């Protein structure tokens, strides 16, 4: 037990029951830091409950229960960390926690069944879960919200069984169980009448996949507000689609203008995009560090934080840019001091495919148990192109390009070059020797490349580990099952011994 990374057997935190003991001894300084951050999360939670609206919302919506697991979620996502890694995780993910709380407050304030603030509600434009908020930078007087993010996506990450009830609702309705659980869960929330019905109008998008698109159509029926469907091209690497993509984005802007009476403010939009570009530059700094032997901003911290910046904040929130800069500073410090996130780095890996929402902490386990360093993941590798902040026509084209390259869809759509070739190009750039390939049972887009992936990996001598899961349904492939697949490969193919044997096999089926 001690200050050094990997000095404590972490398997002891898992008892087969709900965790009651999560504190690790990380040395005096890090333990105190971690503990005060943990107290801070409780403060955020308690502060949240001091509002009548929030209490009413908590009692009205079944999915709100999942938020009680938030402190545990932070513990899971900082497990074994020390120094810079610990600080980056707490600060980056902590900002997302605060942001989600703010979002929930706004939702409950507008919700006719809770706060019923009609004037406030009339300013809300509802976006679907996987859709970037970026274009709302041009509507500074309107409020961007997504009800699916707090009701479905974050719930599944906070509590592994957080949305299985809703997936089952959808299956009862008649949708087959082989579709992706995410749109299925969203539809389930609709069927269970568990979405706050807010907003002046809505914009949906053909975001991640065919299933997601279909779920949207059915949800739109229940929202009962004017809805615009933004059809972003699927073959988004083709030059011939860019003009259309820009026109569709412009159509979406016109729709919002018509519905709300607001006018798109180009100056505000350009300011927002300047922030977005600055955030992209920070991200590129992190990726540069990741090419070295001492990567810093990586794994789950990078993944979850990047979703928040790229998709939800979209340049509209200065707090994210400030945080980016803080993180860069921390990362530089860690790199200069050659700080490591595990006691030994044995492999550098990319995680590709869609990660299990119920096991976002797997990359941390990879490091702690096997010394596999998760340099980057598929969902993080989004567009790093700069958006023009002077020319309106070019800015529209650039904005459209962002929408074509939203998280997930930029890999699930666009064909072989985006799904397969891009991976191996990252492998070269980031000196990757292992790919943890998530087999998300409901994801048809990646499954279609199964054989081609193996052939390409074999050609390049990259270790390839398939890890099966079902995104939001742990009963179809538990966290333990996922670890088993990796353990088997490490033991039988690579004949390696774990860094922390206590983590090799444990039961966390009852954990949040």
């Amino acid at each position, binding site marked *: 037990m001690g200050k050094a990374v990997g000095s404590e057997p972490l398997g002891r935190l898992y008892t087969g029951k709900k965790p009651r003991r999560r504190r690790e001894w990380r040395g005096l300084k890090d333990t105190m830091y971690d503990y005060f951050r943990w107290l801070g999360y409780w403060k955020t939670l308690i502060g949240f409950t001091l509002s009548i609206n929030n209490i009413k919302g908590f009692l009205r919506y079944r999915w709100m229960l999942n938020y009680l697991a938030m402190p545990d979620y932070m513990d899971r996502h900082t497990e074994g960390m020390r120094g810079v890694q610990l600080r980056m995780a707490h600060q980056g993910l902590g900002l997302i926690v605060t942001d989600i709380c703010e979002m929930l407050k706004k939702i409950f304030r507008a919700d006719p069944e809770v706060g019923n603030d009609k004037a406030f509600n009339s300013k809300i434009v509802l976006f679907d879960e996987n859709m970037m908020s970026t274009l709302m930078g041009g509507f500074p007087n309107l409020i961007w919200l997504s009800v699916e993010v707090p009701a479905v996506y974050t719930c599944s990450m906070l509590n592994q069984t957080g949305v299985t009830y809703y997936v089952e609702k959808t299956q009862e309705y008649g949708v087959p169980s082989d579709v992706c659980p995410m749109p299925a869960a969203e539809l389930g929330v609709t069927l269970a009448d568990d979405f706050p019905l807010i907003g002046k109008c809505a914009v949906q998008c053909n975001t991640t996949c065919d299933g997601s698109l279909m779920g949207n159509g059915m949800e739109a029926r229940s929202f009962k507000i004017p809805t615009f469907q933004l059809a972003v091209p699927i073959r988004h690497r083709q030059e011939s*689609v860019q003009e*259309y993509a820009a026109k569709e984005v412009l159509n979406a802007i016109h729709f919002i203008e018509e519905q709300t009476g607001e006018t798109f403010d180009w100056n505000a939009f350009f300011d927002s995009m300047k922030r977005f570009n600055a955030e992209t530059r920070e991200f590129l700094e992190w990726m540069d560090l990741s090419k070295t032997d001492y990567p810093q901003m990586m794994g789950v911290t990078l993944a979850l934080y990047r979703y928040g910046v790229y998709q939800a904040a979209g340049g509209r929130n200065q707090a994210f840019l400030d945080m980016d800069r803080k993180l860069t500073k921390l990362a530089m410090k860690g790199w200069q001091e050659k700080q490591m996130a595990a006691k030994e780095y044995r492999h550098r890996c990319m995680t590709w495919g869609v990660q299990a929402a119920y096991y976002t902490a797997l990359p941390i386990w990879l490091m702690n148990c096997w010394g596999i360093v998760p340099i980057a993941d598929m969902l993080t590798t989004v567009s790093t192109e700069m958006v023009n902040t002077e020319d309106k026509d070019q800015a529209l084209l650039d904005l459209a390009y962002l929408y074509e390259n939203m998280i997930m869809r930029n890999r699930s759509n666009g064909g072989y070059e985006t799904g397969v070739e891009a991976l191996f190009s990252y492998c070269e750039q980031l000196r990757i020797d292992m790919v943890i390939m998530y087999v998300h049972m409901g994801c048809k887009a990646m499954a279609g490349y199964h054989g081609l992936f193996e052939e390409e990996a074999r050609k390049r001598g990259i270790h390839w580990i398939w890890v099966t899961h079902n995104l939001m349904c742990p009963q179809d492939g538990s966290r333990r099952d996922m670890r088993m697949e990796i353990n088997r490969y490490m033991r039988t193919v690579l004949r390696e011994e774990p860094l922390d044997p206590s983590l090799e096999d444990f039961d966390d089926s009852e954990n949040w």
Partner: protein
Amino acid sequence: MKDLKHLYYFEKLLEEANHDLIREAQSRGQIAIGAVCFQIPEPLLNLPGCFSVRFRAPRTASMEMGTYYMSSMLCEGCRAILERAIEGGFEFLDCIIAPDACAQMNRCVENIERQNLCTKEKFFVSYADVPMKADDTALEHYVRQMREHVLKPLEEHYGIDISDQAMREAVETQNRISRLISEIGAYRKEENPRITGYEFAVLCTATYCSPKELLLEKLEETAEELKTREPDEKPGFRARVLLAGSEIDDPGFIRLVEDAGALVVADRFCFGSLPGRSEILLTEKEDPLTQICRTYMEWGKCPRFMNTAKIQERQTYIDALAKEYHAEGLIYQQLKFCDYWGYERASAFHVMREEYGYPVLSLDRPYVVGNSGQVRTRVQAFVESLEIKRAGRS
């Protein structure tokens, strides 16, 4: 009923992906274009000098290689087609022109391309982005895509004439086929139809995977023969149904449904005639490409069309067809693992039943249905429920 004179001929055509008529057309110097989806308008693939062959994998047994390359969680239709390609069954193709319409079929085509499963020297694959909404912006996009990813490559690789005149010619040929199919299909509206759903499906499916001109003669003779065909005095069915859903490229599925007592009087699926075998009406006021694209965009009934108006249109269209063809019930079927129809089927089951008042059977099925006892039992039960309803009403 007396057997149709050419039914066996058409059935034989459907037994192979590369059948006699394809070989005949190729021997005359025509190029064969592999087609995977309704959303590349057929006339553009049937310009003078080329013809389209819609992918099918008849008589599929094992699909292990297809499953290895695409995993067991993907549409069996796509896996079966890939398997056939790996076996060399699509070597005859000169190119494949595919829209990126559903991810699974796209992966199937990409596998064919990346594994070099078609080896002709000038072989190429072209992918087009096709609209997911039906409006003016989408139409403009559609036209551009068809020009750049269908017409241009055909001209560049094979010197195909892509002039307006050539397009009008192709539309006229397709219209001749469509008029015949519509004329034959209209008999299904009769109280005691002189053609079964299976027979009609054989004729209609053949038109999607054969050089059209070479089919005309036999189709005309069949249409002529049907004018005087006498149906059996006692109808051989117990209920009339409309069949909707994922693509059905095997008329054997319809035979299975009909053997269970449900006559398929209307076909709203890919490879069906409604609306795929309607006439394309061209005027001189606008270029033919735009008109063809507009027609296909308006016809499009695939659930991938995501705007609310199109979603509602799919339901009203089914309602109108059911009334026109006097269907008592609807069967929504879905190829297993198809995301689009997985949702659409579930939704239609509720909407068409609760809002339109139709009895609905919701069915998911494998690609190779064969003599599926499960499907038969479910259709039989549905037919019985329709009979009970009918008895209750009377």
